[in-house]
């Protein structure tokens, strides 16, 4: 059975989205780790790690938002077809 061009693009979109999901999940795990060490530092009565982990986590969020923008772009391309 021959696949139409639309089917091929649909498969490509699915694969691209799967890849983005894996990236976002990996970044989320890094953020979870950052939150954990910030909490440990806080409970130990220190504050030295709070700001660096906050900034790093914010950077991760920006990457995630950029990836989400990519997902929305895929959506728009999909809608045009």
């Amino acid at each position, binding site marked *: 059975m021959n696949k139409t061009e639309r089917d091929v693009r649909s498969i490509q*979109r699915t694969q691209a*989205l799967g890849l983005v999901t894996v990236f976002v999940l990996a970044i989320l795990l890094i953020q979870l780790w950052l939150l954990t060490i910030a909490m440990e530092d806080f409970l*130990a009565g220190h504050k030295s790690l709070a700001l660096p982990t906050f900034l790093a*986590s914010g950077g991760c*969020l920006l990457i995630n938002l950029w990836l989400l923008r990519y*997902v929305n772009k895929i959506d728009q391309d999909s809608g045009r077809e």
Partner: protein
Amino acid sequence: MEDDGSKPKWRKDFPTAWNDDNYVTRRDFTKFLVLTSGALVVGNGYFVLRRPTDLAAEATPRTLVASTDELQVGGVKLFAFPTENDSALLVRTSDTEYAAYRQRCTHLGCPVTYSHDSNKLECPCHNGSFNVSNGQVLEGPPPSPLPKITLAIENGQIFAVGWEKQS
């Protein structure tokens, strides 16, 4: 049997392609993950805004803990200091010496207990332990000594009066 030569008839009854179906689910899942990512940033921000408790700055009311003949050597008494919500423990380490500590591990805040067998203050959560004489960390993950309470003994009564400075 085919409808128009290119699509099978069953496609009319089930018009959604499997790939598109999965695609929509993953898209929503990704959006949810990004939302969670934002929540984690907010969580990190909480630790930036909130200051750790500074024990030295806390008001420390003079608190009666026990009488000197109340505990045997190796005996332990729990009490509240400096507020009703802060648990502390008093240990009689010898005939004439007592030691009192905040009953909260400096690692993740689990309550520490005195072990008669090892003569140490132990945290059951991550197997941290502290020296019962000075509160210094002996083993495990705690990053700093246990806050030690200054005691005053007057007329056979033991009072908690403040926090000792530790290196």
